[in-house]
């Protein structure tokens, strides 16, 4: 079913937050994520005649466009020299201290920060699948369609992402005495 232009805009803009979150995971950078989201919308708008509103809606289609734009850009950037800013160099130089998140033992805030850190350490592909599954409530089929991989790959990525998170958080919880072995 084809949709009207205004309807398309409305539907697409409803998912801006979701696209921004996926963009953040893919780029690991707020400014680049914003550029990616904007480019995704422009591409989607120009290609809207090709869009068919199917049972699972517009979300996987938008994520797929974002995914393609991001990987095309990454390929292009790999072929060009990269300018590294001072902040990034500082982060690299002081990697160990930056990796450590101070804990507040009176709450689980520390655990959430630790979780955020553990997620960031996962490969981008795992982060994306995890985010789409846990926060955006995509089905396996939707995730597979969005990131262009078979459903089996989605399942294995989800499984591995979860296993790695458990491993990292378990180690942390043991160190902090939150669990006993």
């Amino acid at each position, binding site marked *: 079913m084809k949709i009207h232009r205004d309807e398309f805009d409305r539907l697409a803009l409803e998912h801006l937050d979701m696209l921004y979150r996926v963009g953040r995971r893919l780029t690991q950078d707020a400014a680049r994520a914003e550029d990616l989201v904007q480019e995704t919308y422009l591409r989607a708008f120009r290609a809207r005649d090709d869009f068919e509103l199917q049972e699972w809606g517009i979300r996987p289609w938008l994520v797929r466009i974002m995914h393609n734009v991001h990987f095309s850009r990454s390929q292009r950037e790999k072929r060009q020299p990269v300018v590294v800013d001072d902040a990034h160099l500082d982060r690299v130089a002081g990697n160990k201290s930056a990796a450590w998140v101070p804990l507040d033992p009176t709450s689980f805030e520390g655990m*959430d920060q630790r*979780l955020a850190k553990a997620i960031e350490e996962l490969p981008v592909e795992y982060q994306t699948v995890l985010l789409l599954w846990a926060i955006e409530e995509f089905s396996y089929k939707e995730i597979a369609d969005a990131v262009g991989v078979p459903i089996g790959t989605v399942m294995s990525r989800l499984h591995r992402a*979860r296993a790695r998170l458990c491993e990292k958080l378990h180690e942390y919880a043991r160190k902090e005495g939150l669990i006993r072995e």
Partner: protein
Amino acid sequence: MNPEPTQFDDPALKAALRRTLGGETAPQALRKRIAQALLAEHATEQQQPPGHTPRRWRLPLIGLAAAAVLLLGLGLVYTFAWNADRSVPPYFAMAMVETSRRSLGEDRARNAEHGIADPLANVPATDLAAARAKLRAELGHPVLVIDPGDGWTFQGASLSDVGGTRAARFVFTRGDATICVYSLSTGALGYRYKTKDGMTYSQTEGQYHISGFVRDGAVHCVVGSSSTGSLPLRQVTALRNLIRKAAETMSMGGSFESRGCPAPPRAS
């Protein structure tokens, strides 16, 4: 259709992830920027004329047009490259030049003075057609030569040696200009030099202009020179083209001997 696999669920992990990452929202500035960008896209679309081809059709058309232009370009390059005159190998050119030099009037006069036999005397100079038939029988490959007319005088023909290959040679003179017309096996060009019917050559070696073509396993060359520069390469090439055309006429059932022979252009 395969049913979708059962969804794995982990409410605790989901809840933790939502707490951690779910709060991220797009900045207002981004929201505004995208809304403006989409409005600008709408405006651009509306400005396009009614008969405007939709974008999705335009791209394949551009691709097809580009492919057609590329194919046409390649075809033209191939055609020009094929039709362009090549150069014969230097050793072959020098051998023809050396044999031709011996045909010049001065050399012939010097030979006579020193009692050296005239190399052109081995085939009767009185009858071009008879000389061609005799040499063809001797060599076993086509011998292509015509009377150039236009003031050229047939001086004689001989079975000559061009770089170790036997060749038919016909000599014509006009004023200070001399042309030698050779027919010899393409083997004379060397085994590394690939030849094909229809290939043409044009080049200048010192004072000698060389212009030839390949046909029926033989290479046919006109080598011309003049002491005052009255015979340019253009005229030598024109003469080569006349011989080539005559050979084509002959292959279509015409007679090589009986064909009319238009005069090559004179140097201005």
